[in-house]
């Protein structure tokens, strides 16, 4: 094996932040190289430099021994570097084929559609990336959209593929499929840089791991010679507790009660069917299920973002199903939505402004309609400190923060308001182990302080380690509600797949 990519002493400085500070990295041919690091450690920045999106302030890039002086991604692509970003860059209204050939159309413009489809079929066969070239991207699942991004790279003959947190938005099943693809690519001699915060994934798929901390590379290890605990410690720079420690379960009064709730989607199809459950104070209720089984519709209905067809939603003994969203927030409900960039934040607002996104009208932050920026900044500096949002300059636009730090803004806002009911959808998505440890601690604190928490996650691990009770949703129906202590992975898995009878048999 010989070095395909060499990164030497790369430094990149943003206003007020050294995002990369003398970074070194070597990627061999045909190797899967994982990059680990805390939120804001500089991983995405480094990848963007390798992909030609950012110009480094100093340092050198070499590809197969040749020095690279990239003026933009088009040049990186030309040299055989492909990248799938943390947030996809596809055009939803175009077809798969159109997205793939965009900018490199066979036959120029107007492009040769037949040829394009043929080419794509061929590539998808060669790399085992099955897809329908004529499907519209907006109709595809996240996993398939990602496949389109990967195909885009190989349509342009990539030798090196960069995957920036590819699994953050995938279901466990989709992740397994992606790993299958990655293994096949590796067999064909393609090198892959793989970024993830999930240590078990890194352990499973990578050959080598490079750990970054605060803009620096702190070491490269052979994956098989290390373990998750060592990686976690190296990454955070201290001993990390990977196991959640939970105090005794002491449920109080019912906070949220949902009865016979039915919700339709845009096509008037019943997505939530006669669902009933209760959540008590001092309890974490986990909602497990495969993505797309009605979780989104259920949560949106609870938050007043979607009309319900029938049923009752009771919060602290009063019906709230007719209340507008803002009134529900005022009653002490908090909500961490699934998509931080589209639903949780205004990317072009400052961190400070985002931290008051739901409370700017509250007397704490505005008087007679005039926002009291002194108070807003006081709040921001407190939250930035408490939730370790980096960098600490709260006048930066939220869009300029790293993915994990964006998530921390939402957390600071939603958990920091001390809600009586918190609805958290994938609260730790894209967070590093240290931050996850911290968030789990915060959620448990909230629970011990008498709040009720509805936790929606696609990750069984997270649901199982935090929840006091677990509801499993399949096809819009709550299949069963299990006790958090005794529930097993297998039982939940079967229920998630919809086989109630089998699950009952396992129980017996």
């Amino acid at each position: 094996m010989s070095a395909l990519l060499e990164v030497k002493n790369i430094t990149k400085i943003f206003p007020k932040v050294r995002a990369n500070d003398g970074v070194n990295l070597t990627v061999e041919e045909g190797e899967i190289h994982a990059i680990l690091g805390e939120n804001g450690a500089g991983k995405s920045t480094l990848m963007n430099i390798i992909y030609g999106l950012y110009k480094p302030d100093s340092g050198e890039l070499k590809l197969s021994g040749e020095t690279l002086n990239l003026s933009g991604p088009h040049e990186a692509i030309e040299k055989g570097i492909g990248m799938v970003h943390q947030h996809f860059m596809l055009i939803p209204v175009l077809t798969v084929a159109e997205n793939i050939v965009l900018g490199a159309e066979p036959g120029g413009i107007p492009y040769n559609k037949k040829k394009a489809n043929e080419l794509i079929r061929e590539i998808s066969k060669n790399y085992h990336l099955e897809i329908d070239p004529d499907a519209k991207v907006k109709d595809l699942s996240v996993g398939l959209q990602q496949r389109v991004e990967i195909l885009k790279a190989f349509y342009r003959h990539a030798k090196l593929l960069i995957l920036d947190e590819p699994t953050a938005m995938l279901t466990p099943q989709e992740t397994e499929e992606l790993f299958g693809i990655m293994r096949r690519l590796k067999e064909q001699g393609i090198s892959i840089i793989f970024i993830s915060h999930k240590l078990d994934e890194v352990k499973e798929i990578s050959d080598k791991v490079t750990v970054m901390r605060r803009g620096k590379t702190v070491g490269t290890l052979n994956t098989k010679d290390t373990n998750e605990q060592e990686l976690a410690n190296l990454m955070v720079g201290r001993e990390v507790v990977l196991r959640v420690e939970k105090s005794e379960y002491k449920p109080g009064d019912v906070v949220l009660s949902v009865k016979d709730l039915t919700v339709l989607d845009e096509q008037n199809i019943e997505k939530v069917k006669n669902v009933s459950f209760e959540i008590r104070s001092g309890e974490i209720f986990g909602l497990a299920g495969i993505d797309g089984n009605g979780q989104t519709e259920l949560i949106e209905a609870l938050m007043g973002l979607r009309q319900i067809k029938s049923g009752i939603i009771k919060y602290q003994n009063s019906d709230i199903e007719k209340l507008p969203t803002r009134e529900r927030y005022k009653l002490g409900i908090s909500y961490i939505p699934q998509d931080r960039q589209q639903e949780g934040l205004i990317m072009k607002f400052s961190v400070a402004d985002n931290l008051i996104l739901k409370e700017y009208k509250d007397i704490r932050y505005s008087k007679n309609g005039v926002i009291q920026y002194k108070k807003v900044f006081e709040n921001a500096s407190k939250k930035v400190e408490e939730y370790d949002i980096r960098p600490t300059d709260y006048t930066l636009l939220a869009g300029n923060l790293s993915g994990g730090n964006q998530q921390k803004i939402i957390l600071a806002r939603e958990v920091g308001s001390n809600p009586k009911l918190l609805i958290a959808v994938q609260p730790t998505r894209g967070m590093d182990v240290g931050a996850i440890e911290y968030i789990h601690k915060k959620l448990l604190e909230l629970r011990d302080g008498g709040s009720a928490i509805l936790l929606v996650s696609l990750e069984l691990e997270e649901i199982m380690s935090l929840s006091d009770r677990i509801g499993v949703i399949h096809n819009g129906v709550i299949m069963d509600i299990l006790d958090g202590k005794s529930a097993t992975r297998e039982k939940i898995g079967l229920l998630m797949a919809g086989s109630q009878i089998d699950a009952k048999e396992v129980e017996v």
Partner: protein
Amino acid sequence: MSKVLKSIYMPILAVVIAIIIGSIIMLATGFNPVAAYSSLFIGAFGTLPNIANTLANAVPLIITGLGVAIAFNAGLFNIGAEGQYWIGAIVGTWIGYSFKGLPWYIHIPLALVAAMIAGGLWGGIIPGFAKAYTGAHEVITTMMMSYVAIYFSHYLLEFGPMMEKGSVPQSPLIRDSAVIPTIVPNTQLSYGIVIALVAALFVYWLMYKTVWGYEMRAVGFNQRASKYAGMNVPFNIVLSLSLSGIFAGLAGAVQILGVQHRLYDSFTSGYGYTAIVVALLAKNNPIGVVFSALLFAALGTGSQYMQLNAQVPGQLTDVITGLIIFFVAADKIIELFKTMFKKQKKEELAS
């Protein structure tokens, strides 16, 4: 670089590049750019009356530009400011001449407020509700409403109820009590400039310091996240389009009360369209609107003088205006110039 400097950097660069390309065009067509630009400058700022006229020209551009900027801030494209301006002008004129015996401190505010309400209804109620509840695109609806307003004014003035006796299609003069007095005698500069500057400060305060501005900007950047945060998105769409119309309407009335004193029949004032450019160049910042309006006003007054004194056709300023718009809209091209320039500097240092 400080924040302010950074935000005005690109627009200034756009203007500079447009001026440079303008001189290349002049050289290529056989004119002396130095003579042309200096007479342009003298025409705009050379004497007190010239300065006054430039400022006077800026007044309607500032106020209409503010209106357009508010809508832009909320992510909406109010292309019909021209029509809202006409509605404001019509209402201002009518109140100006038809009410007798009012003291000025009632007559002027009455005309202005009525014009603002009319402009707000024209821009906000119909296009705003259409957008908020049916999704009808505001570019189409504001544009259509704009034509309705312009043709309505033709009807009023050409043998309609507002036409003065005689054969010229124009309205009667407004009464003295409705006239906004001039500041510099024998020029067009009236106290309208004070109204414009106060309006700019007000809009700045509204958009950046109040909860209403906060909401409108949030909705402008990301409707989905705003909805998730509990904001009333349709309300904010109607509100921002209404405000946009209110300011365009105010501009029309201020122009009538301060400068024209009666409504003439013409197809366009042009202010509503130039205002879009003004707002674009200002990057929708209300304070920036003042400066960018001044620039376009100066180009306007200066070009006549340049035409007379340097024999450069006045259309050349239109070309420069066009180039400015081009470079503002295509800021990526400016980035390109910047990196090219940087590279060159590095190479120079290296050699």
